[in-house]
């Protein structure tokens, strides 16, 4: 079943915020502890499930899981998301030394799969999982600036790099769907730096094949790109996913025109300027205005533009859910 159909069957207007981090703060855990241990991770998701019963509950976002499993050094923090420290894969020879991990056994891929399979069994709604996008993983391996330059100067390297990262993403995304993730969101933030033409040439086919891998296991693929992805909407709309999760700089009217009527457009309350910094009344106002403008479209789903910062007041998330009622 496509995500559009699953969402259409819900009795209430759905709200799909990306909100793992405030759940960590609410349960008094440290980010590093949650991202490296199963039970604290499940505890923070249980908090969010009990408070919001979202139509789709995603695990905590971590864009370093795949890179770390491939052997890259990751720096954790108690308060915020982890980061990849070095980007050592600069040559085809170094790339050749890497192999596609087994998500059922290797690194934190296995850990996140375990969290997803356990949480999926105990929640009301759909379970959501994340996997990093192939271009973003490539940037983690060789450095974003280096990768950006090589999209123009060294197409052969980028092609081989993308072939490898696509295999990694396919394996992980397929495994997440297999253990119970009904929705798998492909997080491809680094692609925002590409021209529409480069996106078509470099990222589109890899995304389609990852989306197909998710469908193989009855999952629904969603694509998220941070920032102003307006120039990529045409490509994103043909990436074979069920929905696009769009950040606050994107005009959803433009997005809704760019996608087929059964492709969801999820967004796009500003995660920092509104959700984190503003008062609940302002959240209500922004959310209601989105509903007023786009609520008539069956494929519009109210959500946040991006993952909510850990400092986001729960009252603001309450206000977002309440606005849809």
């Amino acid at each position, binding site marked *: 079943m496509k995500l559009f159909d699953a969402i259409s069957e819900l009795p209430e207007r759905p709200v799909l915020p990306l909100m793992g981090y405030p759940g960590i703060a609410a349960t008094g855990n440290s980010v590093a502890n949650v991202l490296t241990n199963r039970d604290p991770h499940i505890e923070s998701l249980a908090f969010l499930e009990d408070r919001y019963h979202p139509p789709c509950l995603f695990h905590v976002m971590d864009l370093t899981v795949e890179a770390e499993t491939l052997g890259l050094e990751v720096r954790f*923090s108690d308060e*915020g998301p982890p980061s990849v420290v070095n980007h050592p894969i600069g040559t085809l020879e170094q790339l050749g030394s890497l192999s596609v991990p087994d998500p059922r056994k290797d690194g934190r891929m296995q850990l996140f799969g375990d969290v997803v399979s356990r949480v999926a069994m105990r929640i009301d709604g759909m379970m959501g999982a994340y996997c990093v996008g192939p271009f973003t993983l490539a940037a983690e391996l060789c450095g*974003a*600036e280096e990768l950006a*330059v090589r999209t*123009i100067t060294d197409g052969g390297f980028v092609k081989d790099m993308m072939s490898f990262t696509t295999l990694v993403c396919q394996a992980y995304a397929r495994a997440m769907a297999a253990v119970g993730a009904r929705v798998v969101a492909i997080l491809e933030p680094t692609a925002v*730096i590409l021209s529409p033409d480069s996106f078509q040439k470099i990222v589109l086919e890899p995304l389609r094949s990852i989306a197909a891998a998710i469908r193989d296991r009855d999952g629904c693929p969603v694509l998220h790109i941070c920032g102003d992805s307006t120039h990529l909407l045409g490509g994103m709309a043909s990436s074979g996913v069920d929905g696009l999760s769009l950040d606050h700089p994107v005009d959803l009217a433009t997005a809704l025109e760019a996608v087929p009527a059964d492709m969801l457009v999820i967004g796009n309350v500003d995660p920092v*300027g509104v959700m984190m910094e503003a008062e609940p009344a302002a959240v209500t106002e922004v959310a209601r205005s989105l509903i007023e403008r786009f609520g008539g479209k069956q494929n519009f789903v109210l959500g946040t533009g*991006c993952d909510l910062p850990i400092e986001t007041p729960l009252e603001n998330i309450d206000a977002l859910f309440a606005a849809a009622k």
Partner: protein
Amino acid sequence: MVTSHESAGILDDIRAGVIAGDMDSVASLTETALASELEAKTIMDEALVAAMSVVGDKFERKEYYVAEVLISARAMQASLSLLKPHLEAGKVEPLGRVAVGTVAGDLHDIGKNIVGMVLTGAGLEVENLGVDVKPEAFVDAAARGAQVIGMSSLLTTTRTVMATVVSLLAEQGLRDKVKVVIGGAAVTEKFASEIGADGYGTDANEAVKIVKSLLGV
């Protein structure tokens, strides 16, 4: 000695090379231009700064994206590093001095690097302090003569470092001597005004406009 016609031709070629992002040809043309006794300052102003202004316009019109800006900026840097000894010998003053960095705890570098390169292309002298930059390092840069401190943050958990830098600058008696501008996904106009920053921008082109206007150049 080159004729003015020949020198105009080589400046055109350097300019076109920077716009196309052809680093190798820009470097060799710069060497030829210097050997033919063209002034380094002329090459900088009439070829490099002019080219990066075109690149900035193309970025604003969405003809160029980050990758295109990066290869143009790298070509410009290749030329600039050849010009630098001549500019220093001739005591040519830059339009202004800027230090940019991503704040402590944050390892994102591409946005900050683009801002740095585009500012360089606009004729400013830019010191890139890197990522994960401690507050003291920004203050030291101001003490060394930076007139503008540019800070980037993509994680809300690290943006508080920016407020620390502003107060440290005040403690050291440097706040009046330096302008503070911030950017990155974790910051907003509201936050900029709360911490007492002088400017906030959402992309590299805005950064150039804000910095130039703060410096009055």
